[in-house]
Protein backbone atom coordinates (compact mmCIF):
# COMPACT_ATOMS: atom_id res chain seq x y z
CA UNK A 1 0.00 0.00 0.00
CA UNK A 2 1.40 3.40 -0.86
CA UNK A 3 0.59 6.76 0.64
CA UNK A 4 -0.61 9.60 -1.54
CA UNK A 5 -1.64 13.16 -0.72
CA UNK A 6 -4.65 15.16 -1.80
CA UNK A 7 -2.57 16.63 -4.62
CA UNK A 8 -2.49 13.14 -6.20
CA UNK A 9 -6.27 12.81 -6.10
CA UNK A 10 -7.95 12.04 -9.39
CA UNK A 11 -11.45 11.00 -10.25
CA UNK A 12 -11.46 7.22 -10.07
CA UNK A 13 -8.56 6.84 -7.65
CA UNK A 14 -9.07 4.21 -4.96
CA UNK A 15 -8.15 5.15 -1.42
CA UNK A 16 -8.61 3.70 2.03
CA UNK A 17 -11.21 5.62 4.02
CA UNK A 18 -12.50 4.51 7.42
CA UNK A 19 -10.49 1.31 6.92
CA UNK A 20 -12.33 0.36 3.73
CA UNK A 21 -11.53 0.83 0.07
CA UNK A 22 -13.39 3.75 -1.52
CA UNK A 23 -13.32 5.29 -4.95
CA UNK A 24 -13.04 9.05 -5.43
CA UNK A 25 -16.11 9.87 -7.48
CA UNK A 26 -15.72 13.65 -7.39
CA UNK A 27 -13.50 16.20 -5.72
CA UNK A 28 -12.98 19.93 -5.64
CA UNK A 29 -11.09 22.50 -3.62
CA UNK A 30 -12.80 24.76 -1.11
CA UNK A 31 -11.49 27.64 0.95
CA UNK A 32 -13.58 28.50 3.99
CA UNK A 33 -13.77 32.20 4.79
CA UNK A 34 -10.46 33.07 6.46
CA UNK A 35 -9.21 29.53 6.09
CA UNK A 36 -6.69 27.37 4.27
CA UNK A 37 -7.48 25.10 1.34
CA UNK A 38 -9.45 21.90 1.78
CA UNK A 39 -10.42 19.16 -0.65
CA UNK A 40 -14.06 18.16 -0.63
CA UNK A 41 -14.55 14.62 -2.00
CA UNK A 42 -17.40 12.26 -2.80
CA UNK A 43 -16.30 8.75 -1.91
CA UNK A 44 -18.02 5.56 -2.97
CA UNK A 45 -17.57 2.47 -0.81
CA UNK A 46 -16.46 -0.53 -2.86
CA UNK A 47 -18.17 -2.90 -0.47
CA UNK A 48 -21.53 -1.18 0.01
CA UNK A 49 -21.78 1.19 -2.96
CA UNK A 50 -22.72 3.93 -0.49
CA UNK A 51 -21.51 7.41 -1.43
CA UNK A 52 -20.48 9.87 1.26
CA UNK A 53 -18.81 13.25 1.32
CA UNK A 54 -15.61 13.98 3.19
CA UNK A 55 -13.48 17.09 3.29
CA UNK A 56 -9.73 16.56 3.63
CA UNK A 57 -7.15 19.16 4.62
CA UNK A 58 -5.11 20.09 1.56
CA UNK A 59 -1.96 17.99 1.67
CA UNK A 60 -3.44 15.30 3.92
CA UNK A 61 -2.05 11.81 3.32
CA UNK A 62 -4.16 8.75 2.61
CA UNK A 63 -3.43 5.13 1.71
CA UNK A 64 -3.91 4.36 -1.94
CA UNK A 65 -5.59 1.00 -2.45
CA UNK A 66 -3.53 -1.23 -4.74
CA UNK A 67 -5.49 -2.42 -7.72
CA UNK A 68 -4.76 -4.77 -10.59
CA UNK A 69 -6.23 -4.31 -14.05
CA UNK A 70 -7.44 -7.45 -15.85
CA UNK A 71 -9.04 -7.79 -19.26
CA UNK A 72 -12.40 -9.53 -18.91
CA UNK A 73 -15.25 -10.41 -21.18
CA UNK A 74 -18.74 -9.31 -20.18
CA UNK A 75 -20.95 -12.41 -20.10
CA UNK A 76 -24.41 -11.54 -18.78
CA UNK A 77 -26.48 -9.74 -16.19
CA UNK A 78 -28.06 -11.56 -13.25
CA UNK A 79 -30.49 -9.46 -11.21
CA UNK A 80 -28.26 -6.60 -9.89
CA UNK A 81 -24.95 -8.18 -10.89
CA UNK A 82 -22.92 -7.99 -14.06
CA UNK A 83 -20.81 -11.11 -14.66
CA UNK A 84 -17.38 -10.95 -16.32
CA UNK A 85 -14.87 -13.64 -17.22
CA UNK A 86 -11.12 -13.18 -16.94
CA UNK A 87 -9.58 -13.87 -20.38
CA UNK A 88 -6.52 -15.55 -18.93
CA UNK A 89 -7.84 -17.53 -15.99
CA UNK A 90 -11.47 -18.06 -17.05
CA UNK A 91 -12.46 -17.12 -13.52
CA UNK A 92 -15.72 -15.24 -13.19
CA UNK A 93 -16.07 -11.92 -11.39
CA UNK A 94 -19.09 -9.84 -10.43
CA UNK A 95 -19.67 -6.10 -10.52
CA UNK A 96 -22.75 -4.72 -8.84
CA UNK A 97 -24.88 -2.36 -10.93
CA UNK A 98 -24.34 0.44 -8.39
CA UNK A 99 -20.65 0.42 -9.33
CA UNK A 100 -21.28 0.52 -13.07
CA UNK A 101 -23.74 3.41 -12.81
CA UNK A 102 -24.55 4.90 -16.22
CA UNK A 103 -22.29 2.44 -17.99
CA UNK A 104 -25.01 -0.19 -17.55
CA UNK A 105 -26.71 1.37 -20.59
CA UNK A 106 -23.56 1.04 -22.69
CA UNK A 107 -22.23 -2.38 -21.81
CA UNK A 108 -22.26 -5.01 -24.59
CA UNK A 109 -22.27 -8.78 -24.17
CA UNK A 110 -19.08 -10.39 -25.42
CA UNK A 111 -17.02 -7.19 -25.34
CA UNK A 112 -13.72 -7.01 -23.48
CA UNK A 113 -13.44 -4.50 -20.65
CA UNK A 114 -10.68 -3.48 -18.23
CA UNK A 115 -11.81 -4.62 -14.80
CA UNK A 116 -10.15 -3.39 -11.63
CA UNK A 117 -9.39 -5.99 -8.96
CA UNK A 118 -8.57 -5.55 -5.30
CA UNK A 119 -7.86 -8.61 -3.16
CA UNK A 120 -9.06 -10.74 -6.06
CA UNK A 121 -12.46 -9.02 -5.97
CA UNK A 122 -13.78 -6.89 -8.82
CA UNK A 123 -14.23 -3.34 -7.57
CA UNK A 124 -14.60 -1.25 -10.69
CA UNK A 125 -13.91 -0.74 -14.34
CA UNK A 126 -11.45 1.45 -16.18
CA UNK A 127 -13.98 2.90 -18.59
CA UNK A 128 -13.09 3.29 -22.25
CA UNK A 129 -12.80 6.90 -23.37
CA UNK A 130 -15.48 6.40 -26.02
CA UNK A 131 -17.97 3.66 -26.73
CA UNK A 132 -18.89 2.57 -30.24
CA UNK A 133 -22.63 1.93 -30.74
CA UNK A 134 -24.84 0.82 -33.59
CA UNK A 135 -28.01 2.86 -34.14
CA UNK A 136 -30.87 0.38 -34.26
CA UNK A 137 -33.82 2.77 -34.53
CA UNK A 138 -33.71 6.28 -35.90
CA UNK A 139 -37.30 7.44 -36.02
CA UNK A 140 -38.26 7.51 -32.39
CA UNK A 141 -40.54 10.51 -32.70
CA UNK A 142 -39.49 14.10 -32.67
CA UNK A 143 -39.67 15.53 -29.18
CA UNK A 144 -39.95 19.25 -29.71
CA UNK A 145 -36.99 20.98 -31.33
CA UNK A 146 -37.00 24.03 -29.07
CA UNK A 147 -35.79 21.93 -26.15
CA UNK A 148 -33.17 19.86 -27.95
CA UNK A 149 -32.13 22.24 -30.68
CA UNK A 150 -31.24 20.48 -33.93
CA UNK A 151 -31.39 17.03 -32.38
CA UNK A 152 -33.56 13.93 -32.36
CA UNK A 153 -33.76 10.74 -30.32
CA UNK A 154 -32.47 7.40 -31.58
CA UNK A 155 -32.11 3.98 -29.97
CA UNK A 156 -28.78 2.15 -30.00
CA UNK A 157 -28.04 -1.58 -29.78
CA UNK A 158 -28.12 -1.70 -25.97
CA UNK A 159 -31.59 -0.14 -25.86
CA UNK A 160 -30.31 3.27 -24.74
CA UNK A 161 -32.17 6.32 -26.06
CA UNK A 162 -29.82 9.11 -26.99
CA UNK A 163 -30.08 12.59 -28.53
CA UNK A 164 -28.15 12.90 -31.79
CA UNK A 165 -27.93 15.30 -34.76
CA UNK A 166 -30.67 15.00 -37.35
CA UNK A 167 -28.42 13.41 -40.00
CA UNK A 168 -27.92 10.17 -38.02
CA UNK A 169 -29.68 7.21 -39.63
CA UNK A 170 -30.51 3.65 -38.62
CA UNK A 171 -27.45 1.46 -39.21
CA UNK A 172 -24.95 4.27 -38.52
CA UNK A 173 -22.26 3.68 -35.92
CA UNK A 174 -21.80 6.49 -33.42
CA UNK A 175 -19.37 7.24 -30.63
CA UNK A 176 -20.71 7.96 -27.13
CA UNK A 177 -18.93 9.52 -24.13
CA UNK A 178 -19.32 6.91 -21.37
CA UNK A 179 -19.13 9.50 -18.61
CA UNK A 180 -22.07 11.54 -19.79
CA UNK A 181 -23.82 8.99 -22.05
CA UNK A 182 -23.89 11.74 -24.71
CA UNK A 183 -23.31 11.61 -28.45
CA UNK A 184 -19.80 12.54 -29.55
CA UNK A 185 -19.58 11.85 -33.32
CA UNK A 186 -20.59 9.55 -36.15
CA UNK A 187 -18.03 6.83 -36.88
CA UNK A 188 -19.50 5.26 -39.98
CA UNK A 189 -22.62 5.35 -42.10
CA UNK A 190 -24.72 2.44 -43.26
Amino acid at each position, binding site marked *: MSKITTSNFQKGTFIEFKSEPHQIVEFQF*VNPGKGSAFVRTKLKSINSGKVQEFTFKSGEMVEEVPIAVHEMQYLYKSDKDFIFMDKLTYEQYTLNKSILGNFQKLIKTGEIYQILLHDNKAIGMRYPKKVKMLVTEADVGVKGNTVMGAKKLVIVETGLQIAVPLFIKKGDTISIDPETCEYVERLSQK
Partner: protein
Amino acid sequence: MKTWQKLKKNPSLWQRYFVREKVIQAIREFFLKQHFHEVETPLLVSSVIPESYLEVFETHLLDRNRKKKRMFLTASPEASIKKLLVAGIGNCFEITKSFRNTETDSNLHNPEFTILEWYRVKATYEEIMADCERLLMFIYKKFRNPKPKDSHATINYQGKTIDLSVPWERISVPEALKKYSNVSFNEIAQQSNPMFPMELITRVARKKGYQVTDKNTWEEIFNQIYLNEIEPHLGTEGKPTIIYDYPRPLAALSKIKSSDVRLSERFEFYIAGLELGDCYTELTDYEEQKKRFAEEINTIRQKNKIAVSPDNDFLQTIKAGLPECSGIAVGIDRLVMLFADAANVTEILFFPLEDILK
Protein backbone atom coordinates in the same frame (compact mmCIF):
# COMPACT_ATOMS: atom_id res chain seq x y z
CA MET B 1 -16.46 24.82 -26.08
CA LYS B 2 -15.82 28.27 -24.61
CA THR B 3 -18.65 30.21 -22.98
CA TRP B 4 -18.95 32.76 -25.80
CA GLN B 5 -19.22 29.88 -28.28
CA LYS B 6 -21.91 28.19 -26.21
CA LEU B 7 -23.84 31.48 -26.05
CA LYS B 8 -23.62 31.95 -29.81
CA LYS B 9 -24.90 28.40 -30.35
CA ASN B 10 -27.63 28.57 -27.73
CA PRO B 11 -29.00 32.10 -27.16
CA SER B 12 -31.40 30.89 -24.47
CA LEU B 13 -28.35 30.73 -22.18
CA TRP B 14 -28.04 34.53 -22.08
CA GLN B 15 -30.76 34.76 -19.40
CA ARG B 16 -28.55 33.03 -16.88
CA TYR B 17 -25.75 35.53 -17.51
CA PHE B 18 -28.07 38.54 -17.31
CA VAL B 19 -28.83 37.67 -13.67
CA ARG B 20 -25.53 39.37 -12.75
CA GLU B 21 -26.48 42.81 -14.04
CA LYS B 22 -29.83 42.61 -12.23
CA VAL B 23 -28.18 41.65 -8.95
CA ILE B 24 -25.61 44.44 -9.21
CA GLN B 25 -28.24 47.04 -10.11
CA ALA B 26 -30.33 45.98 -7.12
CA ILE B 27 -27.32 46.18 -4.79
CA ARG B 28 -26.48 49.70 -5.98
CA GLU B 29 -30.05 50.85 -5.55
CA PHE B 30 -30.22 49.37 -2.05
CA PHE B 31 -27.20 51.34 -0.85
CA LEU B 32 -27.74 54.57 -2.74
CA LYS B 33 -31.27 54.76 -1.27
CA GLN B 34 -29.65 54.76 2.15
CA HIS B 35 -27.18 57.46 1.08
CA PHE B 36 -24.09 55.27 1.20
CA HIS B 37 -21.23 56.58 -0.89
CA GLU B 38 -19.98 54.26 -3.62
CA VAL B 39 -16.18 54.23 -3.65
CA GLU B 40 -13.52 52.96 -6.01
CA THR B 41 -10.16 51.88 -4.56
CA PRO B 42 -6.97 50.49 -6.17
CA LEU B 43 -6.56 46.90 -7.31
CA LEU B 44 -2.83 47.41 -7.80
CA VAL B 45 -1.05 48.08 -4.51
CA SER B 46 2.48 48.02 -3.16
CA SER B 47 1.62 46.37 0.14
CA VAL B 48 -1.23 44.27 1.55
CA ILE B 49 -2.74 43.25 4.85
CA PRO B 50 -0.92 39.97 5.53
CA GLU B 51 -3.36 37.06 5.68
CA SER B 52 -1.74 33.64 5.95
CA TYR B 53 -4.57 31.60 4.46
CA LEU B 54 -4.45 33.59 1.19
CA GLU B 55 -2.00 33.54 -1.66
CA VAL B 56 -1.53 36.78 -3.55
CA PHE B 57 -0.93 37.68 -7.17
CA GLU B 58 2.36 39.44 -7.48
CA THR B 59 3.53 41.72 -10.29
CA HIS B 60 6.02 44.54 -10.94
CA LEU B 61 5.59 48.20 -11.62
CA LEU B 62 8.19 49.67 -14.01
CA ASP B 63 8.92 53.36 -13.70
CA ARG B 64 10.12 55.51 -16.61
CA ASN B 65 13.63 54.18 -16.15
CA ARG B 66 12.25 50.65 -16.05
CA LYS B 67 13.15 50.35 -12.41
CA LYS B 68 11.09 47.53 -10.88
CA LYS B 69 8.87 47.79 -7.84
CA ARG B 70 7.10 44.75 -6.47
CA MET B 71 3.32 45.18 -6.52
CA PHE B 72 0.31 43.03 -5.60
CA LEU B 73 -3.30 42.65 -6.68
CA THR B 74 -5.73 43.16 -3.81
CA ALA B 75 -7.50 40.17 -2.27
CA SER B 76 -10.06 42.61 -0.85
CA PRO B 77 -10.60 46.38 -0.93
CA GLU B 78 -10.70 46.45 2.87
CA ALA B 79 -7.41 48.22 3.57
CA SER B 80 -8.15 51.16 1.28
CA ILE B 81 -11.75 51.51 2.41
CA LYS B 82 -10.63 51.64 6.04
CA LYS B 83 -8.26 54.47 5.17
CA LEU B 84 -11.27 56.34 3.75
CA LEU B 85 -13.24 55.56 6.92
CA VAL B 86 -10.50 57.07 9.03
CA ALA B 87 -10.59 60.09 6.75
CA GLY B 88 -14.29 60.43 7.55
CA ILE B 89 -16.24 59.16 4.54
CA GLY B 90 -19.00 57.61 6.64
CA ASN B 91 -21.19 54.79 5.35
CA CYS B 92 -19.86 53.48 2.05
CA PHE B 93 -19.75 50.49 -0.29
CA GLU B 94 -17.65 49.18 -3.14
CA ILE B 95 -18.32 46.69 -5.93
CA THR B 96 -15.02 45.62 -7.41
CA LYS B 97 -12.79 42.75 -8.49
CA SER B 98 -10.52 40.97 -6.02
CA PHE B 99 -7.81 38.41 -6.67
CA ARG B 100 -6.87 35.27 -4.72
CA ASN B 101 -4.15 33.12 -6.17
CA THR B 102 -4.27 29.27 -6.13
CA GLU B 103 -8.09 29.30 -5.91
CA THR B 104 -8.54 27.13 -9.01
CA ASP B 105 -10.37 23.82 -9.46
CA SER B 106 -13.44 24.72 -7.51
CA ASN B 107 -17.14 25.17 -8.20
CA LEU B 108 -17.19 28.09 -5.80
CA HIS B 109 -14.03 30.06 -6.50
CA ASN B 110 -12.47 31.87 -9.46
CA PRO B 111 -9.07 33.49 -8.78
CA GLU B 112 -10.44 36.78 -10.13
CA PHE B 113 -13.86 37.39 -8.62
CA THR B 114 -16.37 40.16 -7.92
CA ILE B 115 -16.72 41.37 -4.36
CA LEU B 116 -19.13 43.71 -2.60
CA GLU B 117 -17.98 45.33 0.63
CA TRP B 118 -20.01 47.75 2.71
CA TYR B 119 -19.21 49.51 5.95
CA ARG B 120 -21.40 51.22 8.55
CA VAL B 121 -19.93 53.65 11.05
CA LYS B 122 -21.19 53.65 14.64
CA ALA B 123 -22.32 50.08 14.04
CA THR B 124 -21.43 46.57 15.11
CA TYR B 125 -21.84 43.27 13.31
CA GLU B 126 -25.43 43.14 14.53
CA GLU B 127 -26.44 46.07 12.33
CA ILE B 128 -24.79 44.36 9.36
CA MET B 129 -26.76 41.17 10.07
CA ALA B 130 -29.93 43.21 9.59
CA ASP B 131 -28.45 44.74 6.40
CA CYS B 132 -27.91 41.25 4.96
CA GLU B 133 -31.48 40.24 5.61
CA ARG B 134 -32.80 43.43 4.03
CA LEU B 135 -30.42 43.35 1.08
CA LEU B 136 -31.35 39.82 0.09
CA MET B 137 -35.07 40.61 0.38
CA PHE B 138 -34.50 43.74 -1.74
CA ILE B 139 -32.76 41.75 -4.47
CA TYR B 140 -35.41 39.03 -4.26
CA LYS B 141 -38.23 41.56 -4.72
CA LYS B 142 -36.51 43.01 -7.78
CA PHE B 143 -36.42 39.55 -9.32
CA ARG B 144 -39.74 38.18 -8.28
CA ASN B 145 -42.05 41.14 -7.86
CA PRO B 146 -44.01 39.36 -5.14
CA LYS B 147 -47.46 40.54 -4.08
CA PRO B 148 -47.28 42.86 -1.04
CA LYS B 149 -49.24 40.42 1.12
CA ASP B 150 -46.79 37.58 0.46
CA SER B 151 -44.99 37.05 3.73
CA HIS B 152 -42.74 34.34 2.34
CA ALA B 153 -39.90 34.90 -0.09
CA THR B 154 -38.93 31.48 -1.31
CA ILE B 155 -36.21 30.67 -3.79
CA ASN B 156 -35.04 27.33 -5.04
CA TYR B 157 -31.35 26.57 -5.24
CA GLN B 158 -30.13 23.17 -6.44
CA GLY B 159 -33.22 21.44 -5.17
CA LYS B 160 -33.29 23.24 -1.81
CA THR B 161 -36.15 25.60 -0.98
CA ILE B 162 -35.16 28.56 1.18
CA ASP B 163 -37.40 31.29 2.57
CA LEU B 164 -35.45 34.55 2.55
CA SER B 165 -37.92 36.46 4.72
CA VAL B 166 -36.83 37.99 8.01
CA PRO B 167 -35.79 36.77 10.52
CA TRP B 168 -33.07 34.37 9.44
CA GLU B 169 -31.68 31.56 11.59
CA ARG B 170 -28.96 32.86 13.93
CA ILE B 171 -26.56 30.47 15.64
CA SER B 172 -23.21 31.08 17.32
CA VAL B 173 -20.15 28.98 16.50
CA PRO B 174 -20.10 27.48 20.03
CA GLU B 175 -23.81 26.59 19.68
CA ALA B 176 -23.28 25.08 16.25
CA LEU B 177 -20.27 23.14 17.52
CA LYS B 178 -22.42 21.64 20.26
CA LYS B 179 -25.51 21.04 18.12
CA TYR B 180 -23.84 19.50 15.07
CA SER B 181 -20.50 18.20 16.34
CA ASN B 182 -21.40 17.40 19.92
CA VAL B 183 -18.35 19.35 21.09
CA SER B 184 -18.52 21.92 23.86
CA PHE B 185 -16.48 25.05 23.13
CA ASN B 186 -14.75 24.54 26.49
CA GLU B 187 -13.31 21.30 25.13
CA ILE B 188 -11.24 23.25 22.61
CA ALA B 189 -10.75 26.63 24.31
CA GLN B 190 -9.74 27.63 27.82
CA GLN B 191 -10.33 30.82 29.76
CA SER B 192 -6.68 31.13 30.81
CA ASN B 193 -3.61 31.32 28.59
CA PRO B 194 -2.90 29.53 26.41
CA MET B 195 -6.51 29.90 25.30
CA PHE B 196 -6.28 27.50 22.36
CA PRO B 197 -3.68 24.85 23.16
CA MET B 198 -3.10 22.42 20.30
CA GLU B 199 -3.51 19.38 22.58
CA LEU B 200 -7.17 20.13 23.30
CA ILE B 201 -8.38 20.43 19.72
CA THR B 202 -6.07 17.66 18.55
CA ARG B 203 -7.61 15.28 21.07
CA VAL B 204 -11.15 16.19 19.97
CA ALA B 205 -10.30 15.85 16.27
CA ARG B 206 -8.47 12.53 16.63
CA LYS B 207 -11.32 11.10 18.70
CA LYS B 208 -13.60 11.94 15.78
CA GLY B 209 -11.29 10.07 13.42
CA TYR B 210 -9.56 13.03 11.76
CA GLN B 211 -5.84 12.87 11.07
CA VAL B 212 -3.78 15.52 12.87
CA THR B 213 -0.05 16.00 12.34
CA ASP B 214 2.28 18.42 14.10
CA LYS B 215 2.32 20.52 10.93
CA ASN B 216 -1.39 21.34 11.16
CA THR B 217 -2.49 24.71 12.55
CA TRP B 218 -5.38 25.24 14.97
CA GLU B 219 -7.34 26.82 12.16
CA GLU B 220 -6.88 23.80 9.86
CA ILE B 221 -8.06 21.34 12.49
CA PHE B 222 -11.03 23.49 13.47
CA ASN B 223 -12.04 24.12 9.87
CA GLN B 224 -11.91 20.43 8.99
CA ILE B 225 -14.42 19.73 11.75
CA TYR B 226 -16.43 22.79 10.67
CA LEU B 227 -16.54 21.85 6.98
CA ASN B 228 -17.42 18.21 7.56
CA GLU B 229 -19.86 18.49 10.44
CA ILE B 230 -21.24 22.02 10.74
CA GLU B 231 -21.27 23.71 7.33
CA PRO B 232 -23.58 21.14 5.66
CA HIS B 233 -26.31 22.35 8.05
CA LEU B 234 -25.91 26.07 7.43
CA GLY B 235 -28.61 27.74 5.36
CA THR B 236 -29.87 24.35 4.23
CA GLU B 237 -32.80 23.84 6.54
CA GLY B 238 -35.39 26.17 5.06
CA LYS B 239 -33.96 29.57 6.06
CA PRO B 240 -30.66 31.39 5.57
CA THR B 241 -28.27 31.01 8.50
CA ILE B 242 -26.13 33.67 10.16
CA ILE B 243 -23.36 31.94 12.09
CA TYR B 244 -21.58 34.32 14.47
CA ASP B 245 -18.88 34.61 17.15
CA TYR B 246 -15.94 32.79 15.66
CA PRO B 247 -13.06 31.48 17.80
CA ARG B 248 -10.24 33.99 18.23
CA PRO B 249 -7.73 32.17 15.98
CA LEU B 250 -10.19 32.81 13.14
CA ALA B 251 -10.80 36.44 14.08
CA ALA B 252 -8.92 37.99 11.12
CA LEU B 253 -9.55 41.75 11.43
CA SER B 254 -12.48 41.54 13.81
CA LYS B 255 -12.86 42.85 17.34
CA ILE B 256 -12.63 40.44 20.26
CA LYS B 257 -15.90 39.93 22.13
CA SER B 258 -15.73 41.67 25.49
CA SER B 259 -18.02 39.14 27.17
CA ASP B 260 -15.83 36.20 26.08
CA VAL B 261 -12.34 37.00 24.89
CA ARG B 262 -12.05 33.58 23.27
CA LEU B 263 -14.53 34.72 20.63
CA SER B 264 -14.53 37.46 18.03
CA GLU B 265 -17.35 39.58 16.64
CA ARG B 266 -17.38 37.98 13.24
CA PHE B 267 -20.21 36.33 11.32
CA GLU B 268 -20.80 34.60 8.01
CA PHE B 269 -24.11 33.99 6.31
CA TYR B 270 -25.14 30.98 4.26
CA ILE B 271 -28.08 30.43 1.94
CA ALA B 272 -28.81 26.95 0.59
CA GLY B 273 -25.31 25.81 1.54
CA LEU B 274 -23.58 28.73 -0.23
CA GLU B 275 -21.29 30.84 1.93
CA LEU B 276 -22.18 34.34 0.79
CA GLY B 277 -20.65 36.85 3.19
CA ASP B 278 -18.08 37.44 5.93
CA CYS B 279 -18.48 40.34 8.38
CA TYR B 280 -16.76 41.82 11.39
CA THR B 281 -17.15 44.48 13.96
CA GLU B 282 -13.90 46.09 12.85
CA LEU B 283 -10.81 45.93 15.02
CA THR B 284 -9.87 49.47 16.03
CA ASP B 285 -7.11 48.67 18.55
CA TYR B 286 -3.72 49.51 17.02
CA GLU B 287 -1.64 47.25 19.33
CA GLU B 288 -3.84 44.24 18.69
CA GLN B 289 -3.78 44.88 14.92
CA LYS B 290 0.01 45.18 14.97
CA LYS B 291 0.26 41.89 16.87
CA ARG B 292 -1.99 40.10 14.36
CA PHE B 293 0.05 41.47 11.45
CA ALA B 294 3.22 39.97 12.98
CA GLU B 295 1.54 36.60 13.59
CA GLU B 296 0.26 36.42 10.03
CA ILE B 297 3.63 37.37 8.53
CA ASN B 298 5.20 34.60 10.57
CA THR B 299 2.65 32.02 9.43
CA ILE B 300 3.08 33.09 5.79
CA ARG B 301 6.81 32.45 6.11
CA GLN B 302 6.23 29.07 7.80
CA LYS B 303 3.86 28.00 5.05
CA ASN B 304 6.31 29.00 2.31
CA LYS B 305 3.84 31.34 0.69
CA ILE B 306 4.67 34.48 -1.31
CA ALA B 307 6.18 36.92 1.22
CA VAL B 308 4.08 40.05 1.08
CA SER B 309 5.03 43.61 1.90
CA PRO B 310 2.83 44.36 4.89
CA ASP B 311 0.68 47.47 4.59
CA ASN B 312 2.22 49.58 7.35
CA ASP B 313 0.28 52.57 6.06
CA PHE B 314 -2.81 50.61 7.08
CA LEU B 315 -1.38 50.13 10.57
CA GLN B 316 -0.75 53.86 10.80
CA THR B 317 -4.33 54.46 9.72
CA ILE B 318 -5.61 52.30 12.55
CA LYS B 319 -3.32 54.22 14.90
CA ALA B 320 -4.82 57.46 13.61
CA GLY B 321 -8.20 56.19 14.74
CA LEU B 322 -10.58 53.96 12.83
CA PRO B 323 -14.11 54.96 13.89
CA GLU B 324 -16.24 52.29 15.55
CA CYS B 325 -17.64 50.54 12.52
CA SER B 326 -18.55 47.22 11.01
CA GLY B 327 -18.00 45.94 7.50
CA ILE B 328 -18.74 42.90 5.38
CA ALA B 329 -17.50 41.25 2.19
CA VAL B 330 -20.05 39.46 0.01
CA GLY B 331 -19.25 37.28 -2.97
CA ILE B 332 -21.26 38.73 -5.84
CA ASP B 333 -20.53 35.71 -8.04
CA ARG B 334 -22.05 33.55 -5.30
CA LEU B 335 -25.12 35.81 -5.10
CA VAL B 336 -25.49 35.47 -8.85
CA MET B 337 -25.15 31.68 -8.55
CA LEU B 338 -27.95 31.72 -5.97
CA PHE B 339 -30.37 33.73 -8.09
CA ALA B 340 -29.44 31.92 -11.30
CA ASP B 341 -29.62 28.49 -9.61
CA ALA B 342 -26.13 27.71 -10.90
CA ALA B 343 -24.09 25.00 -9.18
CA ASN B 344 -20.78 26.15 -10.59
CA VAL B 345 -19.28 29.64 -10.66
CA THR B 346 -18.13 28.98 -14.23
CA GLU B 347 -21.78 28.94 -15.30
CA ILE B 348 -22.28 32.62 -14.50
CA LEU B 349 -19.01 34.07 -15.78
CA PHE B 350 -18.64 35.12 -19.42
CA PHE B 351 -14.95 34.25 -19.22
CA PRO B 352 -14.25 31.75 -16.44
CA LEU B 353 -10.61 30.92 -15.80
CA GLU B 354 -10.82 27.63 -17.71
CA ASP B 355 -11.76 29.55 -20.88
CA ILE B 356 -8.96 32.04 -20.38
CA LEU B 357 -6.43 29.26 -19.91
CA LYS B 358 -7.34 27.35 -23.06
